[in-house]
């Protein structure tokens, strides 16, 4: 059963119903947030860790939620920021690590929670090579077909800049595959 977002916000601001309301928020939004996180961090184990952090962060910063923005917008923003923070930390670990890089596509093909073929694995590798903003915009537009107006509120970037990012991302990914054709 989904609860209307405005009703949830009202319940979240009342200390007597806050915890119960937050439980409903987790129930209602966790799946859609998970897929945003997963497309950035790629592995299920990492996505699960990041999701725990996202929910804990949302709970501890409920006071900072300004009710002039949508609850879902606010949650998406936390999820994407936590995911990008995770990827940045992973990059530092990879640079320090002595192991040779296996490649993202090969790692995904060996992952039991990846059901795609080699082309789909290569697509994920191409996306992962994009700069952060292009990567995020590409995922939101290509997979979720999210409107630029909504994306603009989540990422706090102008619609024009987002459209430009998406076009550049699409161009880079198509060149990636054309070279392999």
């Amino acid at each position, binding site marked *: 059963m989904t609860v209307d977002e405005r009703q949830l916000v009202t319940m979240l601001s009342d200390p007597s119903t806050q915890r119960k309301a937050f439980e409903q928020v987790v129930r209602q939004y966790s799946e859609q947030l998970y897929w945003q996180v997963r497309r950035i961090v790629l592995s299920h184990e990492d996505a699960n860790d990041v999701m725990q952090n996202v929910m804990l962060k949302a709970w501890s910063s409920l006071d900072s939620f300004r009710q002039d923005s949508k609850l879902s917008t606010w949650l998406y923003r936390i999820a994407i920021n936590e995911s990008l923070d995770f990827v940045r930390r992973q990059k530092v670990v990879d640079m320090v690590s002595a192991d040779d890089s296996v490649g993202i596509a090969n790692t995904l093909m060996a992952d039991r929670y990846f059901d795609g073929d080699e082309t789909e694995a290569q697509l994920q590798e191409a996306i992962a090579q994009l700069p952060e903003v292009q990567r995020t915009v590409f995922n939101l537009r290509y997979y979720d077909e999210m409107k630029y107006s909504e994306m603009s509120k989540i990422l706090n970037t102008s619609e024009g800049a987002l459209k430009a990012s998406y076009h550049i991302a699409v161009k880079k990914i198509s060149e990636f595959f*054309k070279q392999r054709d």
Partner: protein
Amino acid sequence: MMNEEKYLEERLSKKNPFQVPEGYFDSFTEQVMRQIPERQQGTRRMLLRPWMYAAACLVVIVFSVALYFSKIAPDTPELPQVAVTESYIDEAADYAMIDNTDIYACLAEN
């Protein structure tokens, strides 16, 4: 639609290739709520309003200053009194046209 976008849509699928363990989302909420503290951390209940705290601080400061000055005040008046007494006697002696010999003689008689 740009040519590259068309190329990608024909070349690739938009299918979600990622999977999750069976029942993951069903148990996720419970997993999260076990980590959430009973009361939201970071909120502190204030017993008094802010202006009351400011007023209380001001009272303490004023009281402390008053106490400090009341402790040093008693010593200072004594010195002026001794000085006034001696100069008063000299003035009186000059006025009465008597010198120290006369004063000593007067004191000895009494």
